[in-house]
């Protein structure tokens, strides 16, 4: 187990390194300068400003300096927010994004599980078709469409919740969280349904039935626990879906989060912030996938993590 974790950590660092390298060089292909008023500066000023930001040096040198600072945890200084470090920029914006992401994840998976179970237990009834239909909608419609619909109906038309902004406490987070949760909800519903149906037809369920266990007991005590295992594996992609969804959903609800910052940094060629947000999201995802893999081993003893060639 320890050996496995060690090995995974090495891979994680390697992945981060590759992402940082790829992002750094891809970013250089963006047209335009990161200095917004480049056209207004005279030659002397340009030289001074470029030197200040270190973009006068050859690209490989810039790369080396960036990686060195990155190793120290320093993400550099924003080109747009004058004199402010990207670390601070992210720190002030991480909270709303985290709240939305966590709520969406928990809410989405829980409801998804319930729907999936309902569909499996009432297979080929109106319940099944209903939740399957719902799941297909959830998978195929992007979260920003849900965001716009929720905003229009629930907030604008029925005045039940705020239209947007982040100043109404928990209420502000409900609609964006629901919009983000649709993907995870649909995905987990489908997974649970398929798994449950398979598990319900297995021998030990038949045995439990023969022993006279009631439906509820069978569903939760026997079938559900086993159906849950494959679900854990999709949590990684689900988290990725929430992160990408948040890029747009935050903008629609005017939430001051990281996703919104990510989008605007690309628009303004703010190199340091693009790098910072990309690395932040990558690190988050890599970490989640790592945790999921660990969980997987814990939940399902059949999977041996230490098996080097497994």
């Amino acid at each position, binding site marked *: 187990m320890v050996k496995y974790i060690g090995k995974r950590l090495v891979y994680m660092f390697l992945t981060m390194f590759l992402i940082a390298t790829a992002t750094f060089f891809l970013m250089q292909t963006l*047209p335009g300068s990161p200095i917004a008023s480049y*056209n207004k500066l*005279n030659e002397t000023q340009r030289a001074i*400003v470029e030197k200040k930001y270190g973009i006068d040096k050859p690209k490989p040198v810039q790369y080396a300096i960036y990686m060195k600072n990155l190793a120290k945890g320093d993400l550099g200084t924003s080109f747009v927010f004058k004199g402010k470090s990207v670390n601070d920029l992210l720190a002030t914006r991480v909270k709303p994004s985290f709240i939305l992401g966590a709520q969406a994840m928990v809410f989405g998976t829980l409801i998804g599980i319930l729907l999936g179970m309902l569909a499996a237990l009432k297979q080929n009834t109106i319940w099944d078709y209903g939740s399957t239909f719902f799941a297909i909608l959830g998978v195929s419609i992007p979260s920003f469409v849900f965001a716009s619909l929720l905003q229009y109906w629930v907030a604008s038309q029925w005045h039940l919740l705020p239209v947007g902004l982040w100043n109404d406490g928990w209420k502000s987070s409900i609609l964006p969280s629901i919009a983000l949760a649709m993907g995870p909800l649909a995905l987990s519903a489908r997974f649970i349904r398929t798994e449950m149906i398979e598990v319900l037809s297995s021998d030990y369920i038949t045995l439990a039935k023969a022993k006279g266990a009631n439906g509820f007991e069978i569903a939760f005590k026997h079938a559900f626990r086993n159906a849950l295992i494959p679900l854990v594996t999709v949590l990684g992609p689900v988290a990725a879906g929430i992160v990408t969804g948040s890029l747009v959903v935050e903008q629609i609800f005017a939430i001051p989060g990281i996703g919104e910052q990510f989008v*605007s940094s690309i628009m303004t060629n703010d190199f340091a912030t693009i790098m910072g947000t990309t690395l932040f999201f990558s690190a988050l995802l890599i970490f989640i996938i790592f945790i999921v893999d660990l969980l997987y081993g814990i939940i399902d003893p059949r999977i041996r993590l230490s098996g080097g060639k497994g």
Partner: protein
Amino acid sequence: MKTNKWLLLVALSLVFSLVLAACGNKDKDEDKTAAPDKKDDKATEQPTEEAGEPDAEQVVSLIESAAIPSVDSAIVEDAVGFNVLNNVNEGLYRLNLENIAEPAMAAEEAEVSEDGLTYTFKLRDANWSDGTPVTAHDFVFAWQRAIDPATGSPYGPFMMSGVIKNATAISEEKMEKSELGVVAEDDKTLVVTLERPVPYFLSLMSFGTFYPQKEEFVTSKGDAYATNSDNLLYNGPFILTEWDGTGDSWVYKKNEHYWDAENVKLETINVDVVKDSATAVKLYNDGKKDRAGVSGDLALQYGTHEEAVHESDTAVFYFKFNQERNGEKTPLANVNIRKALAKSFEKEDLADVVLANGSTAANFLVPRDFAYDESGTDFRDISGDHLVYNAEEAKEYWAKGLDELGVTELEFEILGGDTELSKKMNEYFKAQLEGNLEGLTIKLKEVPFAVRLELDGNQDYDIQVSGWGPDFQDPISFMDLFVTGGTNNLMSFSNKEYDELIEATKDELALDPAARYEAFAKAEKILLEDEAAIAPIYQRGLIQLQKPYFKGLGIHPFGADHSYKWAYISGKE
């Protein structure tokens, strides 16, 4: 099928909102898209100012299109930053509700020497928000800091070079910053020496870059200066609070230390950044916000809303005809071809039906509602219309041009923006031009703003949809663009008479306003009517939703967008 349409609609508005997101951050000289951003300018139809008594509660809630990158007056370069500065700080002059610069930190009108080169300002007794007096030294410090190349001020050298004495040399490190033509004779007397007479100098004094900064405070804060609302000093109508430096919301509170505090009615202004136009409108309809800009498809929907206010902006959009590409003359070097193209598209329909966002057809370069002569006459009423749509004339010019070139067919590429609105507009151009001019093929090249700038820089295009928003209140802000070798003249246009006229307005005509405006009018006629170097398309307009109880908002044609100093709430209860 219905779902698909919805999806498409939402996807489109998404793309649009992404583009808008960036607008607020870019400098506003050249506009990236035809889409209106939140840069509102002088109103053509101000909300009716009924003489209503101000309410007891003076709180207003507004929207900005982007976060504040900086509020250091030497560093500010974006629309939001300048807007904040204008409301929390104050220069020697301030634009009033009629957009005339009037003394602010200056106690009275400046004393100007006969040669127009020396301005002496007497400062009024005014205090910073820490209770200390604003002195002439604060101006000297701030201006020297802005011109110092080490500061990297985008607007310092840009606004001062060729205006204030020695500014150019200092910005190129050829002189010490202490040699800048600005001196504090005593605590309350500021003397400014100019390089040449500048007829619009006093209106420049209302521009953010020329605001004062208290040396002691700036030095003691070091790198932290102006990075959040606690690290700033205020001498304007409001103070900034609850701004953490990168956040999407902030609050203005009335500044009790302001010299004219008794005329400031608003107590609190809550601001949130909302980048999505549809969300902004929903917040407005929900009563959460008192003003919201509408753009794109929303403009069509809300254009006739009873609370819609149509405002004209001072950005003008036009075709640039490139006369030389890759070192070779293009067919556009032929004046008849240019004239034919310039006169062959209907502009009113474009503004009213295609754009439908409050924009108006332009038959000029210098916009309407922008620059006025001494008697207050709009420059547009002095200089006439040029290159008005006329398909018949266009056809004649076209035949003549083709004849001169000895060809029967021509193909041009139109370089334009890639937003929904730009694309719609480009299609319109293609249809109009090809429909009117036989043998013409138009290819559309739709690229993001940064790419267009790059292609423009390399002069690598045939026809480009371009635009310009002024930095100061004078026709020269536009006319200077197209002199031979001008930084924006990346199309090899050159006309000696035009150059001479523009030079004269800076030189021998500088002190003769009437003759100067005549010269501008003549130059504009050469540029458009005679040469068709560019073809004006439209003057941008904006549609804003504004609650009827929100009154007295100052809307400006250059520099900061708004003044809240005279704004108030009346009749909300």
